[in-house]
């Protein structure tokens, strides 16, 4: 056997094995990425037959069907938005874990912020007012107390004088 041929065969086998390993790794990573996408979309959808569970969390038959459909549509090349639109078309916007910020839904997005702003302002106003009232009280007591004491002392002195006389 020609040593060159043996060497070429060795190189060819090594290249083929490397190619298959790379292909397998790429295939596995592609499959993983589909899994991740299914999971991501499933967590954006609420399970219609469960109490407060997303499609990603639920073990119900319906959630299982929905995950299969997400996978199938991803494999068909549909985007996340198209898949979500398909489910909204069947079940309505209540299927979405986060209601889209439009129409009356704006309230859900705005109210927490409004509550925080107004609550914060209320607390600041309350603290400010109570602090200024405290200062007013302190100021008043500092100004009036010596006068009261003076009057009192005056009266005592007058009484003492009366007693002496």
């Amino acid at each position, binding site marked *: 056997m020609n040593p060159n041929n043996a060497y070429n065969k060795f190189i060819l086998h090594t290249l083929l094995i490397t190619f298959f390993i790379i292909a397998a790794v790429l295939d596995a990573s592609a499959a993983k990425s589909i899994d991740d996408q299914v999971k991501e979309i499933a967590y954006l959808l609420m399970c*219609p*037959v469960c109490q407060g569970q997303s499609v990603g969390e639920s073990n119900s*038959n*319906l959630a299982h*069907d*929905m995950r*299969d*459909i997400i996978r199938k549509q991803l494999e068909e090349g549909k985007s996340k938005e198209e898949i979500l639109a398909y*489910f*909204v*078309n*069947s*079940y*309505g916007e209540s299927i979405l874990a986060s209601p889209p910020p439009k129409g*009356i839904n704006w*309230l859900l997005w705005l*109210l927490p912020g409004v509550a925080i702003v*107004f609550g914060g302002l209320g607390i600041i*106003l*309350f603290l400010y*007012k*109570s602090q200024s*009232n405290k200062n007013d009280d302190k100021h008043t007591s500092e100004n009036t107390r010596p006068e009261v004491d003076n009057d009192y002392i005056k009266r005592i002195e007058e009484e003492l004088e009366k007693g002496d006389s």
Partner: protein
Amino acid sequence: MKILSTSGKVIVLIGILGLISLMGYAIFGNRVNIKTSPLVGNKAPEFTLKTFDGKDLKLSDLKGKTVLLNFWASWCMPCRQEAGALERSWQKYKDKDVVFIGVNVWDENSNALSYLKKFGGGYPHATDPDEEIQVDYGVGGVPETYFIDPSGNVRDKFTGPLTEQIIDYFVLRAQVPNNNES
């Protein structure tokens, strides 16, 4: 201690009343347009089902007929409860261009066949080999029934066990041309 002036109190009161009004509108407003399903008034999703006797059943082949699409499962007690009403209504409407289809979902084939022997009746029952029809139609449980008008639009959805009166009401509604479709 006075935290707010009179005008401040009026502004806060108006704000609170405004928020209550908005919440009231969100809960009770626009009741007229509330639908039992987003599909109501829209084209019914196409399906090709496989009947239990091996035939294909396509929605597009039923154009011009009113279709009652009833989702059921063998383990579902309310489905048993409505089975008699469905059979009697089918007998009444089968020659009046009304097609009844039972769609078995989330079930074992053997259990479904045993159920059909007891409660099946004369109209076709089928399954979706791709198990997608229940999601296409937004089914959340069984029994659920969709009424599709002769032009192929979903006219109504009913959740829960049917009675003959309910079937009459929705079948007649589906047969009357709808002028309010979106």
